[in-house]
């Protein structure tokens, strides 16, 4: 499930994933459904369909005697527990390391059953890590989890730079409550972090429309839509589960 970083010429070399043409899932954590990740390419903010948003969630941690690196380490170690119940993250056994995959089984508003997808760890150092989406994921782009010190106070931050991957997801984000649900997820994560470090869960939120244009040339991305494919695959999963119980 990994791709080792190479090159020693830059200080950041060890923090980046190595380029991969297609994602490869080599181990599936217990309980996770692995679907819509194997064989997919990663997609950045330039490859998606919808409007490009930068959303920033910040948690100031006054009074917490904690270094930014400790906060980021906590997020890396406890990411599955920090996620809300409807959005389960399954890191590989190697954890949040460059090139590793994190499988995701989540629910979306208006979509029956779970949507199975995942993300790749694009970048990871002591004070930040970034998860990048694959084809078919609701978004094209990445989420960066970081911490830094500002005027003597440690600040934890989650920042997404992403657009809906295809027209179906764009509709879902705009009109089916997808955007609000996504914002609730990251507020939940930072609130959990606040609880862990004993600080008030006051999450600042800043939303910027970076590009209002829809990229119609990317409408074809719907072919890989993970929600549609997960729904189509649900009966197969059910049959397999029943057959497994009988045998």
């Amino acid at each position: 499930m990994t791709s080792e970083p190479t090159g020693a010429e830059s200080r950041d070399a060890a923090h980046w994933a190595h380029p991969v043409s297609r994602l490869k899932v080599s181990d599936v954590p217990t309980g996770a459904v692995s679907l819509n990740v194997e064989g997919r390419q990663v997609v950045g903010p330039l490859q998606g369909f919808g409007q490009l948003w930068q959303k920033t969630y910040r948690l100031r941690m006054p009074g917490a005697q904690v270094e930014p690196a400790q906060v980021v380490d906590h997020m890396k170690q406890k990411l599955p527990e920090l996620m809300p119940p409807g959005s389960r993250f399954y890191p590989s056994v190697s954890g949040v390391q460059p090139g590793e995959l994190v499988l995701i089984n989540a629910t979306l508003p208006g979509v029956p059953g779970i949507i199975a997808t995942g993300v790749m760890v694009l970048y990871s150092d002591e004070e930040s890590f970034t998860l990048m989406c694959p084809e078919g994921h609701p978004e094209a782009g990445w989420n960066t989890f970081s911490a830094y010190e500002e005027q003597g106070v440690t600040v934890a931050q989650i920042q997404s730079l992403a657009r809906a991957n295809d027209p179906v997801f764009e509709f879902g984000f705009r009109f089916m409550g997808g955007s609000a649900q996504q914002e609730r997820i990251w507020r939940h994560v930072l609130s959990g972090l606040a609880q862990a470090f004993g600080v008030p869960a006051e999450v600042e939120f800043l939303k910027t429309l970076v590009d209002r244009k829809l990229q119609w040339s990317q409408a074809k991305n719907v072919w890989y839509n993970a929600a549609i494919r997960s729904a189509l695959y649900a009966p197969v999963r059910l049959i397999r589960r029943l057959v497994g119980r009988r045998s």
Partner: protein
Amino acid sequence: MSQAKISISVRRAGTAVSIVDIQGEITSFAETALTEAYNQASRGGVNTILLNFEGLEYMNSGGIGLLVTMLIRANRQNQQLAAYGLTEHYQQIFELTRLNEAIVIFGSESEALAALPQA
């Protein structure tokens, strides 16, 4: 708060190309410096902004995000963004993040200027 460790200068090459010389680290703390450089570089009918990465010492995913937003701004102004001076490592990062699909990468300044439209 961590400080930006970057210095940027802007120069013109002909009437239509601005070259942005980047020295240091591109992280999220470089946002102000990069925005100011972009504003300066895009003045006066420039249609191509050429980023010189020969002095790039460090870049993280926050920095890559800044390049994406710069690219979007340039596209909105009907400007092309191009680059040269990327080490093999940084070329790989452009490939990984698929920025190479939108930013034309050249081996050197002379190669870039020979290929880019000058007016």
